[in-house]
């Protein structure tokens, strides 16, 4: 066991670090006040452009599509170093993490040439148009319709939970092209121009007050057949590529989310009825269990990285990360707010307690987004442990004849 870099890794890390010092100097501390959305987008584009030009974009992607053709360990080293700064990266995490790999896996050479470079350089932003109001966990039950009309398809329907839809240039879109086929077999995937006539984006406000997602409405939107990804009816297979990349992206504790350290600091400042909060056995056990969960996930991911560096593919084992982290955040935030009594209910702006309030709201969404706790436990039970799937209605019923049980 060795927590140190190999000489090659150390050299790459040193090179990255030097580049970041030269290029990310303005991002070494958090911004004094939060950026507005316009500024965030502008800064994100500028930063992605810099990375692209310096050869730090698409690190693991094939050279043929403009990537660097390096190993996942290079990607991880770059990510580790980049995350020591406060550079803005979230605008591209879905596009470059999930959409473009789907494009270069299933797209024609023309599509790859047209879309991949501009995505990689940050010039064009991408979003993912999968979920629908009646198709959440059960993605294959989507109802957005695409009908063939000569050389183009006409799309009607509604998508939901689309991050950065209003700032995206293009999206990957899963539609149903055959309602009389069984549920998984009537789907087809397209690239869609988010500026096309008939595309309407409406922000969704979350419980926390923020609007990180959108609804997207499609009314007679025309998509050229040449922008199709994969064969007609093969949309589910194409979507699985995207979802496999989601598995890599949905991970551990969100950066800067409160953890055990904050619980120690909050407890240190509270004198309860019986003792200093930090001395109370229940609080200490809560700190311990938060540490066990959060650090355990980190260490588990390091085990996966070690396997990755030996050539293994990340498997469904990684599903434990979010299921552990989200519930731990929720429980820890609730415990801390309890401990803080009325100060936890009306917390001062910018205080640790306010961060814990946000964490309490945010964690409720994190337990759902990117696979609910329940879906992730099913994945672990079925794909890791080999248990049989839930009993469900036959898979070969035509979609338009399915009667819910």
């Amino acid at each position: 066991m060795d927590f140190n870099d190999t000489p090659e890794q150390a050299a790459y890390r040193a090179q990255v670090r030097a580049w970041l010092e030269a290029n990310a100097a303005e991002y070494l501390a958090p911004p004094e006040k939060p950026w507005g959305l316009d500024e965030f987008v502008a800064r994100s584009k500028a930063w992605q452009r810099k990375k692209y030009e310096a050869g730090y974009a698409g690190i693991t992607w094939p050279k043929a599509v403009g990537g660097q053709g390096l190993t996942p360990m290079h990607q991880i080293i770059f990510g580790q170093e980049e995350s020591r700064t406060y550079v803005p990266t979230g605008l591209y995490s879905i596009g470059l993490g999930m959409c473009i790999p789907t494009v270069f896996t299933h797209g024609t050479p023309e599509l790859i040439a047209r879309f991949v470079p501009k995505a990689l350089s940050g010039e064009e932003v991408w979003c993912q148009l999968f979920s629908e109001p009646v198709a959440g966990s059960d993605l294959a039950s989507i109802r957005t319709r695409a009908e063939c009309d000569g050389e183009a398809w006409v799309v009607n329907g509604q998508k939901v939970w689309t991050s950065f839809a209003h700032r995206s240039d293009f999206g990957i879109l899963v539609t149903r092209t055959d309602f009389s086929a069984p549920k998984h077999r009537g789907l087809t995937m397209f690239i869609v121009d988010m500026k096309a006539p008939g595309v309407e984006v409406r922000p969704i406000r979350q419980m926390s007050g923020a609007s990180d997602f959108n609804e997207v409405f499609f009314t007679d939107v025309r998509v050229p057949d040449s922008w199709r990804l994969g064969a007609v009816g093969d949309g589910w297979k194409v979507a699985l590529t995207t979802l496999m990349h989601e598995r890599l992206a949905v991970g551990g504790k969100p950066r800067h989310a409160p953890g055990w350290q904050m619980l120690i600091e909050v407890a240190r400042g509270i004198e309860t009825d019986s003792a200093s909060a930090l001395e109370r056995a229940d609080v200490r056990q809560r700190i311990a269990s938060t540490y066990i969960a959060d650090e355990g996930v980190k260490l588990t991911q390091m085990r996966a990285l070690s396997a990755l560096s030996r050539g293994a593919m990340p498997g469904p084992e990684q599903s434990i990360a979010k299921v552990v982290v989200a519930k731990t955040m929720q429980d820890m935030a609730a415990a801390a707010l309890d401990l803080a009594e009325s100060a936890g209910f009306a917390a001062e702006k910018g205080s640790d307690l306010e961060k814990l309030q946000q964490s309490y709201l945010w964690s409720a969404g994190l337990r759902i987004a990117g696979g609910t706790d329940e879906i992730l436990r099913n994945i672990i039970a079925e794909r890791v442990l080999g248990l049989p799937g839930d009993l469900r209605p036959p898979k070969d019923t035509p979609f338009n004849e399915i009667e819910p049980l």
Partner: protein
Amino acid sequence: MDFDLSDDAKTLREAARKFLEAEAGPKSARAVMDAEAPHDVALWAKVVAQGWPSARVPEAHGGLGLGTDEACVLAEEVGRSLAPVPLLATMDAIEALLIAGSEAQKARWLPRLAAGEAIGVVAWGEGDSKSPAQMPATRLESGRLSGVKTPVQDGLSATLAVVTVASADGPAMAIVDLASEGVTRSPVEALDLVRKSARIGFDSAPAEPLGDAADWVRLTERLAVLHAWEALGTAGAAMEMALAYAKDRQAFGLRIGRYQAVKHRLADMYIKGELARAHAMHGCWAWGTDASELAQAAAAARVASLEALSFTAEETLQLHGGIGFTWEHDCQFFYRRARAVSAALGSRAHWADRLVRALEQRNRAAA
């Protein structure tokens, strides 16, 4: 033996539920959340017209002189409907006067509270992390009150406050007309966006002492019972919403209520709710009969109801999936209200400690 609510209380519950289903509910809560006014003024007028604020006020003071059963079912129904009115806050203040008020104080305030001319509130928190049993910084000296109470839920609506003050024997109470000189008020942002909170400052405001330190302890026990019923109502409404959703929403060709992960979670909500209801009834009985078990029964009711409410609020949201996390959905009312109920009277850990203290005394007495 008859471990059940009185028939009168059940009748009142039915009436209150029907009334509030028609007049209140999440829509009314959302309207108040989005508005400037700290409560639903029109609804409050109707609630007053129903006579509910006067429920526990003795007939001699213009009230209905009802028992604890009736008070508890009103709390449950307000909790269930999320009705954005200062009824429970007013009932809290009435209870303080009933426990500790002099005849003059009762005569002055009870009729006005009963008639809805005054809106009451009990305020103990000072924006720090103290429990209701810890000594406040607020002081009452020579009839002048100085200090700050925050966050005071319904404090923007109240016209009369019962506040805790330091005394040699522990926290004691003072009563203060919020229209007095030296009283300042401002809204405070807190987790519950419907039941709004205030910061109330007292700068040598005229006030009177209200009972002694033992009265404050007794009051917290009674309020623990009353607000346990509120929590039961809120948890019950959340659970019904989750249940309806589980019976309707489909995933992978099945209604999600068929999946054991969902149905067993709902069973757990029911179990926690039933345990909490049993303790809340015990508390109601102990309060109503002034039984020696009150300290124990009240603490148990509080702990069990907070446990039921927070679990139900969290898992109701979870069962709704993405939609439950949106601003437009009602899940947030329950999720946020659970924190408000906890903050209003001290956390589970505080009351678990009090419960065990009461049990130790009982164990000693039995030995």
